């Protein structure tokens, strides 16, 4: 399941849904990403996340399908927030379930690595009402070579 939304999410609730829907799964792995309150230039008070509606869902679906093809997964969930967020707010949630932990771990990391470099989201950090677009990191791009 894939959701691009403004609303916050409850990690505990999402985990329980995955657990209660599980069928012979031995592992649930999840990652949640937060808005950091500092960057290289100082304090970050809030963040705006822009996206490309339609393409975002398409790319996330493709990444999810690629992960399902590579590993033995039962359930997969991606939630990504857009709009204005505050420091320490939750941005992203990725969860995978599998019979065995290795597949769930690897798939979760694979999804995050590809989401960061392929999914059309753009972050703007705001400090004292001054906005600064976040620049893409070459280290994120290099991680793709590991897959």
């Amino acid at each position: 399941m894939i959701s691009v939304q403004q609303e916050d999410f409850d990690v505990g609730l999402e985990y329980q849904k995955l657990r209660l829907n599980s069928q012979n799964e031995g592992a649930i792995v999840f990652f949640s990403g937060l808005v950091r309150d500092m960057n290289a230039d100082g304090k970050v008070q809030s963040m705006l996340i822009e996206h490309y509606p339609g393409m975002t869902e398409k790319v996330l679906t493709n990444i999810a399908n690629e992960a399902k093809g590579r590993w033995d997964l039962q359930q997969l969930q991606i939630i990504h927030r857009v709009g204005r967020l505050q420091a320490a707010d939750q941005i992203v949630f990725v969860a995978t379930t599998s019979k065995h932990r290795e597949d769930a771990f690897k798939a979760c990391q694979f999804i995050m690595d590809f989401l960061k470099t392929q999914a059309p989201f753009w972050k703007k950090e705001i400090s004292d009402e001054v906005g600064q677009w976040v620049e893409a990191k070459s280290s994120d791009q290099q991680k793709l070579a590991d897959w």
Partner: protein
Amino acid sequence: MTKILLFGKLREDVGQSSIEFAGFSQGTVGELRSALVTSDIGDTETFIAGQALVAVNQTIVDDTHPVLPGDEVAIFPPVTGG
């Protein structure tokens, strides 16, 4: 005439979320980039020639990919989600 969607810093620099670009009707993505660089759409030429990504019909493509009339074309900076 090609409609081009803009996102992120590029949208902000141009001051519009989409443009109707008269300098290109069809060709390759590379030709579209060249046409944009020689056009007058604000202070964005270096960005469009260099690091900006191009999506055709919601898929990121390279400069050899064709752009046909009616395609959904978007240009944007490298993505920074997650």
